[in-house]
């Protein structure tokens, strides 16, 4: 009975309580949040956690936080906290009373470690970075003051351990990303790229369609330990992008942004070695005409037989050893390289609206980007992107998030192989005019590009006018991309959420290559000259769905647990159809119907991938300082062999926040955290790898590949040790990470004995090991008044070695002529080691037999550092050019002063060989330094990127030596006694073994680059008050991308490489093979917020 009365009392009290509470007035706290320089900071969360109340600052940094009176006890002391990623959180204690009106301002410093940031990648639910036991790099929009032209390049120079290489400058092309080095010995048919996730959509195709202006946050998980959660797709790491959703806005606010950027593309550097205005031919006394072998003067193009300058008239043989390239072309000469390229236009326009009202927040945007690039005759790249993101609270316990993105782009394609216009350009003499018209054309040839001179140098039967191709060939790629995702969250209990997610990624591609009827080629190619067209239509779809249960438990004092269970299912489908044909029956009708039906061909390919996986992950947080994490995952995939359909992955990780220990008393150390993670992840085989295949063509069936039912994914084990520290009042932040990764079961196409008839079988047959050091140092260097200077220095180095190879050593390469075999894959080799012939630099590199017959005293090292033969008693001081040594090295006649191939000792066989390592594509280390200066409304930002100790194979320069059109031969400004003749440089091109890389042209490509520079001035709302439109801000900017490079590399840009091929990444296959050169861009921009 007593209990019953008590119950009644409680019920009555409860029933009356709301009435009583409602009677109390709300308290209001207003204020402004600024940064260290006094500039307003938008999107800062101001919260009183104890009262479950919060607000967000607007563009002027103002906030208004209303606490319902029902939650306030008179005189209650509470902590109010202001925080936002990138800023160090700040808290204040205030006293609240019902109806109170308080003002509380905050001035937040930049956070040097960003441990307050919330991480969602690789963890069991959103977790403060301070409590994540492995490294997850994060970038926000604030870290991208120079908006990248694509989302993929956003992390360039900003994440230690992430190598981002724009192997090609072709507008609209994607860079290659390599996280902590390569993880596959051979990525043939695959790539070394990380797994990309955008707003919950696991991408099925490249990131290239995504822009960067909508990015709110990028998280980069670099290794298998952190990426174990993503199982068999994640050994190369994970990049997760979250776009803006209007979440952080104050309630009932709609924010509009309009941004426009206009500028120019231009070649930043014209390598002087690429072409020369000089020639090696004999000329008459006043240098106006050439001389033939009989001494007769004649004009170039009409001269029957031009003689070399050093050749004795009437001599039987031209003497390249007595000819020095010092003569200028008579008449008008042109710097063909500078004439060839043009300055292009860059524009980017952005419109966005985002808002929040009650349980709804959204973001809608449109971006148009046009970049015409630097090649004449090509229109470049044009992309339109649309995005809609929406979050809706349906009920207190149900919410829905949806994202949709559509991109449509058009790109002038450019074949990036030998024989393309840049190849032809490197063979054009300075005395011809590439923009001239054909002789028989009276009209201005630019009115009809088909009239432009086709063969400006008639003596060159290999290379036509490069402009002709660019103006007349139509090679267009169009892409349509749709990404869509929806997540439904149901929270039946305070500690339990269920998430159901579906995502869809669709890419439609059309690529057409059209040559009109009558198109000229050198040499004649009937399949093209009568007209040719091919078209690729490809559809790629990725559908993913998952269901997740997330649980949060409090287990006694200061022990919290988060546990997540998930099941996910994935479908990836591809369908490509290729049609080609030649010989148009009518002109200028680019349709397949009018092609010669007998010459029409078609092929198609269809791929399907079905995968699923399930995992359990749990995380314990003990006393705010001990973090334990464990996960287990099982993946199944149709890509695995039939007997290996399911694979297990796991992780164990721990972190210790030393500075949270009660006994820790080092005032200058604000945060010290150690983490250790051990985890596993995989790389899947390509679609074809497991199947036995016979190739079927019009001419029959042939066996190709033996199937392998035991084919497994590559299995990476990674150990990661890291330390995070902030010091001196959070002014200095230091992060150091060491990672060791061993990737076993390398998927390799293993050749089979010839008599089986099969070419190969994919097997798990090798191990790759990499070691990585990463460090980041962030400092708030100066903070005085309204001036501040923040800097961030990043360093990383990775070494990757093949530690086991169960197949015979093999060569690897990239697409392109003579590029199939530039790397050597064998046990003990570092990945990316170039092999070729090297120029001897010391007597030790001479063949033993040579040294026995010709003692070292007959040789000297010249000013290029090469060992050359000077004969008995000879010296470099007394040149004897034209004297033959009477002996050969590697079948090369040894002449006085000539360089020649040197030998090395093969590491495996210990035999002497002319096939030697000549460079390595993986750098000794990467370094980047960013500085941000704020002074009132002015912000100056610069990013300098340095990649040191790596090589690029400069094939265009090596091959230009073959034609003697390169400035390598140029002796005009060389002292007479140091001049070297044609034969000397001819020898650098090639010795006896074909077209492999020469050590002279596998160049040290170390560089320092001013990658980004931005000057911005922002007018705040207060200064815009007089203008109509209720403007929140107006920002004017001057932006530069890829501005200046300091390097000894003799090409357009040392940041070059080839994606695809055996190595699967431009960051690894550092080969210059006639790609579209990288260029710089200057723009002016205006951004308005209202």
């Amino acid at each position, binding site marked *: 009975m007593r209990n019953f009365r008590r119950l009644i009392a409680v019920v009555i009290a409860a029933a009356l309580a709301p009435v009583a509470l409602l009677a109390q007035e709300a308290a209001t706290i207003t204020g402004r949040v600024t940064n260290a320089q006094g500039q307003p900071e938008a999107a800062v969360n101001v919260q009183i956690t104890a009262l479950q109340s919060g607000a967000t600052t607007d563009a002027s940094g103002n906030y208004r936080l209303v606490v319902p009176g029902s939650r306030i006890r008179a005189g209650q002391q509470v902590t109010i906290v202001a925080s936002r990623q990138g800023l160090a959180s700040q808290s204040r204690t205030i006293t609240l009373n019902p109806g109170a009106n308080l003002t509380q301002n905050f001035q937040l410093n930049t956070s040097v470690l960003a441990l307050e940031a919330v991480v969602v990648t690789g963890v069991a639910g959103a977790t403060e970075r301070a409590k994540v036991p492995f490294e997850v790099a994060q970038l926000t929009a604030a870290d991208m003051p120079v908006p990248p032209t694509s989302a993929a390049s956003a992390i360039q120079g900003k994440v230690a351990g992430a190598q981002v290489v724009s192997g090609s400058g072709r507008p609209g092309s994607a860079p290659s990303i390599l996280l902590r080095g390569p993880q596959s010995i051979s990525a043939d048919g695959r790539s070394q790229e990380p797994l990309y996730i955008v707003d919950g959509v696991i991408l099925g195709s490249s990131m290239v369609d995504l822009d960067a202006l909508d990015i709110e946050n990028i998280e980069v998980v670099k290794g298998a330990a952190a990426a174990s959660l993503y199982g068999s797709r994640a050994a190369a790491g994970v990049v997760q992008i979250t776009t803006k959703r209007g979440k952080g806005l104050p309630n009932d606010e709609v924010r509009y942004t309009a941004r426009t950027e206009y500028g120019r593309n231009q070649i930043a550097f014209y390598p002087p070695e690429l072409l020369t205005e000089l020639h090696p031919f004999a000329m008459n006394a006043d240098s106006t005409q050439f001389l033939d072998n009989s001494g007769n003067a004649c004009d170039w193009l009409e001269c029957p037989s031009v003689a070399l300058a050093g050749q004795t008239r009437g001599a039987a043989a031209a003497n390249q050893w007595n000819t020095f390239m010092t003569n200028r072309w008579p008449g008008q000469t042109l710097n063909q390289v500078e004439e060839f390229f043009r300055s292009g236009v860059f524009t980017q326009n952005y419109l966005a609206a985002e808002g929040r009202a009650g349980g709804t927040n959204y973001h809608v945007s449109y971006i148009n980007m046009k970049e015409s690039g630097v090649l004449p005759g090509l229109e470049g790249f044009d992309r339109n992107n649309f995005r809609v993101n929406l979050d809706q609270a349906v009920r207190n316990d149900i919410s829905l998030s949806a994202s949709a993105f559509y991109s449509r782009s058009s790109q002038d394609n450019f074949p990036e192989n030998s024989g393309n216009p840049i190849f032809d350009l490197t063979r054009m003499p300075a005395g011809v005019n590439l923009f001239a018209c054909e002789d028989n054309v009276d009209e201005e040839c630019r009115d009809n590009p088909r009239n432009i001179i086709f063969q400006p140098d008639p*003596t060159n039967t290999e290379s036509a006018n490069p402009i002709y191709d660019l103006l007349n060939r139509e090679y267009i790629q169009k892409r349509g991309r749709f990404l869509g995702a929806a997540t439904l969250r149901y929270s039946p209990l305070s500690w339990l959420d269920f998430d159901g997610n579906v995502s869809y990624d669709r890419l439609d591609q059309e690529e057409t290559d059209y040559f009109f009827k009558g198109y000229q080629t050198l040499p*004649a190619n009937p399949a093209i000259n009568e007209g040719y067209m091919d078209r690729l239509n490809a559809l790629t779809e990725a559908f993913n769905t998952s269901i997740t249960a997330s649980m949060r438990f409090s287990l006694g004092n200061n022990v919290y647990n988060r546990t997540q269970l998930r099941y996910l299912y994935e479908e990836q489908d591809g369908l490509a159809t290729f049609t080609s044909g030649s010989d148009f029956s009518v002109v200028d009708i680019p349709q397949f119907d009018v092609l010669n039906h007998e010459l029409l061909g078609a092929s198609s390919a269809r791929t399907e991938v079905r995968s699923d996986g399930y995992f359990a992950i749990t995380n314990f947080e003990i006393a705010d300082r001990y973090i334990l994490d464990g996960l287990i995952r099982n993946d199944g995939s149709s890509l695995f062999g039939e007997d290996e359909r399911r694979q297990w992955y796991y992780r164990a990780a721990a972190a210790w926040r030393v500075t949270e220990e009660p006994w820790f008393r080092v005032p200058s150390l604000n945060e010290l955290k150690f983490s250790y993670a051990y985890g596993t992840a995989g790389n899947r085989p390509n679609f074809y790898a497991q199947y036995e295949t*016979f190739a079927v063509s019009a001419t029959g069936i042939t066996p190709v590949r033996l199937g392998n039912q035991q084919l497994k994914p590559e299995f990476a084990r990674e150990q990661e040790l890291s330390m995070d520290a902030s010091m001196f009042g959070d002014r200095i932040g230091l992060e150091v990470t060491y990672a060791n990764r061993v990737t076993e079961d390398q998927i390799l196409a293993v050749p089979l*004995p010839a008599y089986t*008839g099969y070419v190969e079988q994919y097997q798990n047959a090798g191990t790759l090991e990499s070691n990585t050091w990463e460090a980041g140092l962030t400092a708030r260097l100066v903070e005085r008044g309204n001036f501040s200077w923040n800097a961030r220095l990043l360093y990383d180095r990775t070494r990757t070695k093949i530690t086991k190879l169960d197949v015979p050593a093999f060569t690897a390469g990239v697409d392109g002529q003579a590029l199939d075999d530039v790397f050597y894959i064998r046990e003990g080799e570092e990945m990316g080691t170039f092999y070729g012939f090297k120029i001897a630099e010391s007597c030790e590199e001479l063949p033993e037999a040579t040294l026995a017959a010709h003692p070292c005293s007959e040789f000297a090292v010249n000013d290029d550092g090469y060992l050359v033969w000077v004969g008995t008693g000879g010296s470099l001081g007394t040149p004897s050019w034209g004297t033959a040594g009477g002996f050969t090295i590697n*079948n090369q*006649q040894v002449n006085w002063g000539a360089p020649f191939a040197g030998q090395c000792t093969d590491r495996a066989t210990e035999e002497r060989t002319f*096939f030697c390592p000549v460079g390595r594509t993986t750098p000794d280390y990467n370094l980047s330094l960013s500085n941000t200066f704020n002074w009132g409304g002015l912000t100056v930002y610069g990013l300098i990127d340095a990649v040191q100790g790596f090589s690029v194979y400069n094939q265009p320069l090596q091959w230009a030596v073959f034609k003697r059109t390169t400035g390598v031969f140029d002796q005009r400004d060389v002292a007479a006694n140091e001049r070297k003749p044609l034969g000397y440089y001819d020898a650098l091109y090639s010795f006896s073994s074909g077209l492999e890389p020469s050590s002279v042209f596998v160049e040290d490509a170390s560089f320092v680059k001013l990658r980004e520079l931005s000057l911005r001035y922002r007018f705040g709302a207060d200064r815009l008050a007089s203008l109509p439109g209720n403007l929140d801000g107006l920002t004017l900017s001057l932006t530069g991308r890829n501005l200046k490079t300091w390097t000894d590399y003799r090409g357009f840009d040392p940041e070059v490489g080839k994606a695809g091929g055996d190595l699967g990444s431009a960051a690894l296959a550092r080969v210059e093979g006639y790609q579209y050169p990288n260029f710089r861009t200057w723009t002016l921009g205006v951004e308005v917020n209202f």
Partner: protein
Amino acid sequence: MKNIRKTAVFASLLLFGAAGCADLDVDNTNQPDRAGALRTAGDIESLISGTFSTWFHNQHNNTHSCANSPGVWMGIASFQGSNSWNNCAANPYSQIPRPALTNAPADANYNTIAQPWYANYRAIAAVSQGLAALAADPELEDDLSASDLARLKAFGKFMLGLGHATLATVYDRAFIVDETTDLSAGTELQPYGEVMTAALGYFDEAAALSSGESFTIPSLWVGASITNVQLAKIARGLKARYRASVARTTAERDAVDWAAVLTDLAAAGGQEWTMEHDWVNWWSNNVFWQSGYGYAWLSYQYYGMADQSGRYQTWLGMTVNSRHPNLGGADNTTAFIIVTPDLRFAQGATRTAQAAAPGRYFRIPEYSITGQWARPDRGTWRWSWYRNHKFDALNDAGDTYRLLPRSELRLLAAEALLRTGNGAAAADSINVSRVFNGLNATNSSGLNTSCVPKLPSSACGGLLHILAWEVWMETMMEGHFGSPKYFFDRRNGFLYKNTALQMPIPAKELQLLQLTPVYTYGGGGDGSAPTSAFAFPHEG
């Protein structure tokens, strides 16, 4: 707590129970596997009929990349054509002095050694699998008409012959594989003589199988339609070619069963084997790289023997590295133009006159007049004023390509007759083309009143030399690897000193079969040509 456990168990069951529900079995619908490829008799027919394409494309570099066939370097090294490009290993393996072949997987020219090996076995294995499948399921034969079945079996044996014969002529050892071979037990390498014996047996079987039912091999299979009668004859003609071509040295040449060669040639009845060069499915890069406009010239080294002006001897007298189309004076007076009665060459006493009067096979083109040849450091001895225009139509627009030219059969018969002591009949065969091209007839004594060829010593060539001359002229760039001169010169001791006489088993295959050490031929080591029987100056 109870609810928590229930919920956790429920969620776990829900999530983990879903695992394994997905169907992870996906078929590859792009290419069939063995079962899919060989399900019907029609499939087996496709398998076997496609083997010629595999064989041909490798022999003739049917790609623009030109990296597969040794045909180009064999042609350039035997001076059938001349160029100094590194493409197709033309420059590296034809340098003077001759280097050894580089049998290293990483070498840029390794594929010229490796690809014939793999491509021939791809063809051989496909035939073997097809015939074995047919033998394993006799009911499959019921799906084919008697004619089609005979065609399939005959063509299969023909391709086994072609594959094994090709291997035997260029590699020192090879495997013998057919439908009776149990590959699961592995197989042993056999010396090239044994491999050739097997090849000749397959050709015999093909000929025998072609003698029953009438059938026609369609153009799609081999680039031209061939009847069963023609196939039998071609098989016999090929037997004759390969029986002779397997010889690496003059000693081996003498050991060839020349009587059998004659028997086979008689059975061949002069049957040519031709195909349409359509530049889509069929074309020969070998020809292009040995005669294409702007890429190749005619070498003076051998073709200079047509010259009657004495400039050939002058040219040969110069050291190799100083040889040049200009012989040392003003070029109009010292240009090394070949003055010859042989109508296959341009006619006239000056360069200008010859440029205006192209010969039947060779001419002086405009670009030679301008003297723009190639890099001198790769040997001005490679240069000449002349280029071969015999194959212009083939190179530019497609034409008929002769895989087994009638002229080869005729001249092979002449060679066999010569070796069997019937010089008069040999001379008659030789004179067919010799006289047609403006040269005086020869006889069993080697009468050579035209003095073509005129040997380096200035003597007029004898009957063997006259035979060689006609072989060089009339079979040029057609037939075996597009470089018949290499094989003819090899067995007759005419190759330039230290040219590789054969190819090693590719290094990768050696490593795979654990047959190391890797070895090679040429360059003065094993398998190098001795000093040429022509005794060229400076060759020693």
